């Protein structure tokens, strides 16, 4: 039988010769398996005198430990090489992509609408809604437009064939939501009402028979015109960003008094006429069952579509409605 030292040398030789993990496994069986010289030598120890047995046993154990270390080390080498080879074989050109899944896009109106909602929600407002087909009462009557009032002519109203002629219409503004909220909710009220509106208008780059507005309404004990101006200013800063300011100019709307137009001044000094606003008219409060001596409020409204156009640099309103995927997919 071979000396243990020779076994170690042999194991070293065979391990080095093995080129795969499988071959090394065979070497391990040959060198340390049941039929290996090492095991045979261990079995033969019983035939020795105790002292000699102890010494030979220690020698054998040392050899076994050495062989195991040799094999483990070689195994680690071979596994690493095998993994490296596999990884090399799996190399990919990561630009070899044939198909890109389509992205979904929110419509620019929705994006703008949601941004506006978020600004006002951040300022403590809730979001109210109302029907798009409205009664003449909520669209005009409750808002201090008496029947036959010339101010109704400022709105090119579309009517629908429902109920008595002239009683049911496509809302011309989101302001009817003001009246509905005031009828249904005790003050204090802090709401915005984004929505779709309609006018008899021929489609062109700056007009559509359908458009979107957002309305704001605040009713509280001591709401003032100064609060309105401050709110418009706070909104301007929040939505448009630093460097944008606002101003109010006297104007006329039947449902507010005092009334104002509000303009936004861009950092370059130019103005954008944005919308209308004012203090809720006492007649509107009364029509909605709120005591104008107890409560005061303001309302404001402006177009969403034009903001979307400005924000995304679109120059024709009609593009919003074509549904051309080459348009929708850009935003």
């Amino acid at each position, binding site marked *: 039988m071979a000396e243990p030292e020779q076994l170690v040398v042999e194991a070293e030789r065979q391990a080095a010769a093995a080129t795969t993990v499988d071959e090394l496994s065979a070497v391990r069986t040959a060198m340390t398996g049941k039929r290996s010289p090492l095991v045979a030598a261990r079995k033969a120890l019983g035939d020795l005198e105790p002292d000699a047995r102890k010494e030979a046993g220690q020698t054998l154990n040392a050899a076994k430990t050495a062989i195991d270390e040799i094999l483990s080390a070689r195994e680690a080498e071979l596994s690493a090489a095998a993994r490296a080879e596999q990884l090399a074989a799996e190399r990919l050109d990561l630009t070899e992509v044939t198909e890109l899944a389509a992205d979904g*896009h929110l*419509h620019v109106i929705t994006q703008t609408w949601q941004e506006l909602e978020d600004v*006002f929600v951040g300022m403590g407002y809730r979001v109210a809604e109302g029907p798009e087909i409205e009664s003449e009462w909520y669209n005009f009557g409750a808002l201090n437009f008496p029947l036959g009032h010339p101010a109704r002519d400022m709105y090119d109203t579309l009517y629908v*064939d429902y109920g008595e002629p002239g009683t049911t219409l*496509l809302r011309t503004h989101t302001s009817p939501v003001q009246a509905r909220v005031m009828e249904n909710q005790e003050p204090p009220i802090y709401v915005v009402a984004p929505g779709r509106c309609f006018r*008899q208008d021929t489609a062109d780059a700056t007009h559509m028979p359908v458009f979107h507005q957002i309305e704001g309404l605040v009713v*509280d004990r001591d709401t003032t015109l100064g609060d309105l101006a401050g709110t418009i200013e706070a909104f301007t800063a929040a939505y448009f960003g630093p460097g944008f300011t606002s101003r109010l100019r*006297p104007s006329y709307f039947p449902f507010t008094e005092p009334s104002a137009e509000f303009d936004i001044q861009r950092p370059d000094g130019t103005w954008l006429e944005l919308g209308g606003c004012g203090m809720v008219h*006492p007649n509107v409060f009364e029509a909605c069952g709120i005591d104008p001596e107890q409560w005061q409020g303001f309302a404001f409204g402006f177009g969403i579509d034009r903001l979307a156009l400005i924000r995304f640099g679109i120059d024709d309103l009609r593009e919003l409605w074509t549904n051309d995927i080459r348009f929708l997919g850009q935003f």
Partner: protein
Amino acid sequence: MKVLLSWLREFAPDIEGEPEHLAGVLSDLGLAVEELSHVGPGLDGIVVAEVLSTRPHPDADRIHLVDVDAGDGEALQVCCGAFNMAVGDLVPLATVGTTMPGGMEIARRKMRGEWSNGMLCSGAEIGMGDDHEGILILDQGLSLGAPLTEALGIHPDVLFDLEVNPNRPDAMSVMGVARDLAARLGVAFAVTAPGVEEAGQPAAERAAVSIAAPDFCRRFGVRVLDNVPSGPSPRWMANRLLAVGQRPINAVVDLSNYVMFELGQPNHTYDLDLVPEGELGVRMAHKGEQLTTLDGVERTLTSYDGVIVNRDDEAIGLAGVMGGASTEISAGTRSVLLEAAWWDPMTIARTARRLGLRSEASARFERGADPEIIPMALDRFVELAAALGATTSPGMIDATGNRPAPITVRVRTPRVNAILGTELSTDEMTALLEPIGFACEAGGDSQDFKVSIPSWRIDSATEIDVIEEVGRLHGYSNIARTVPVTEQAGTLTPQQQDRRHIRALLTGMGITEAMPLPFLAPGDLARAGLGDDGITVTNPLVAEESIMRTSLRPGLLKAVAYNAARRTTGVSLFEIGRTNPGGGGELPDEHEHLAVILAGQEATAATTLWRRLARHLAATNPGVVNGPVDGLHPGRSGQVLADGQPVGALGEIDPQVLDAYEIDERVAWLEVDLGALLEADRGLAPYRAPSRYPSSDIDLAFTVPDEVSADEVAATIAQAGGELLASVSLFDVFRSEQLGEGRRSLAYTLRFEAADRTLNDAEVAAARQTCIDAVTTTHNATLRG
């Protein structure tokens, strides 16, 4: 409303400041300046020239060659694009070296090979009127070569184009704008009474007025003039009218317009010889009554129109809107009745709108003219006419209807401050109001005062109207800005949040949001395989926008077709929008729908989408029931259920509908009533801790008749599997000849597990058998070996 600075200064001579500053002040007063322009400067170098001859350009059709004499007797050739001049006409010539008001420099240059030694000018090019088309033909008699400004008496001036709100009748006049501007600038404002010389037979003996409609006509003033001028008005007046956009016609018409622009009071002249006895009356028209107006059109009237009648009760004028042809002034007219009246605004608005006859005059009556200005307006006309040789009968006929009583309003100082957010004293408020004619009188204590509303502010009648005036004159920009604080937390409602979640889910799945017009053309719904047309719009501009939609389908089909026609197939779009499917109470029912269209995909893509949507919303018992749906492929359509209730439909668009839209690919479709879906029972199932024990998977394949849906089989398994069945999912479907016609194989993976133990083989086997038995007995199915 256009006003000249020089004209404003006739009422407030001390108005000073840069034009831009004044424009800012006017805007801040609520008289928004839409355009600020300069009159006069830039006209240096433009001279009067006479047309000597015209001839065609040898090489151009759109321009011709004009020889003019600019005063030196030489023929100067100019190329000109307008053809409205004749030989002998006097025209404005911009000489070489002139810089035009618009900034263009005039140089000697060749146009298509011919020299042009200057430019002939249109009225618009030199700030005189709006005419861009033709060359301005000047009056004869001007000296050739004279500078145009000198020849026409044009002085440098500033023109403000104002947007006047409906509640500002006073600002429809130079006087009213001057009053506002002077008040804000703190300078004097004064109206000089016109100087009137009277002679001859008293007016009362030559004319009479009776008012039979006293609410419609609250005041009717008349003066009688003789020797009225028949020629043109003086140059200075014509220039002013041109500048404010009114074409000069003749002296009488121009005088009338001038007084209207200046004082805001429209007025009308009748040829006295054509009005028997000079008698005028006012009444409401009879239904069907005929009247030929000045424009020669015969009008049929209603009982809501007001008319002026003669002694014989024949209508001779449409009150406040347009005069009648029968009493029109002509070149031979020597004596006139001059009328200035107050008409009911709503009546005038209705008549003018119905007949499409809105004018500068009707615009003023609609807002509400000032009944107290009538005598002065008549006198002003008389004064200006006298300068042209007219004489005036003594006296004025002043007929009145129901004159409104003067309005006095009690104003509470604290209320004003509470609305505006100011801390003004009563004295400060008074100081703001008095200059615009709101006379203030101290009340019982320092906290309130009485305000007399001026007659020219018919829009003002209540405390809030006065508060607005205080705010306006104080200046909105001088009010301290504050932001109200609410204790309410700003939030979206659960439904609004769901809408956002749905949009996020769909876009995350690669579906893009579309926005079709909510209007349809007649027949659009039928073309999409849907029922009859829904609610119609009674006054659409075009038929394509006359029908309200009952479904989002026509709009999205059109969008797919639009893209397909532009070589983009396979688009996936969705829309969330309102529909009016029919029914309703006081208002038509309005439903919010969600629709998804998947071009190039089969019906099951819609099912997958619906499942994901339902799972996302935690819908209770979402389901699909196969069955025909209008406009969808009859074998590939079904109803969508939430909590057992139908909330929509899905499937594939009917090929016939696709043909109608010229779409060549399969199109999957899902449309749900979003309101119904979100209101249906929803919510996550109660929490179950994940089992710490291993689960067992069993695959089962059944041969099932086609009529039985895969969902039904899964539901049966789920019920039979009971507590131990953690999940069941379909993983394979196939058909083959072996399985036979009308049957297919459905293979499911069942996962069993228990929360408290590892299931033993016997338990799993028993559960498996229960499931097999349930499916085979319930659905005429067989287990495949």
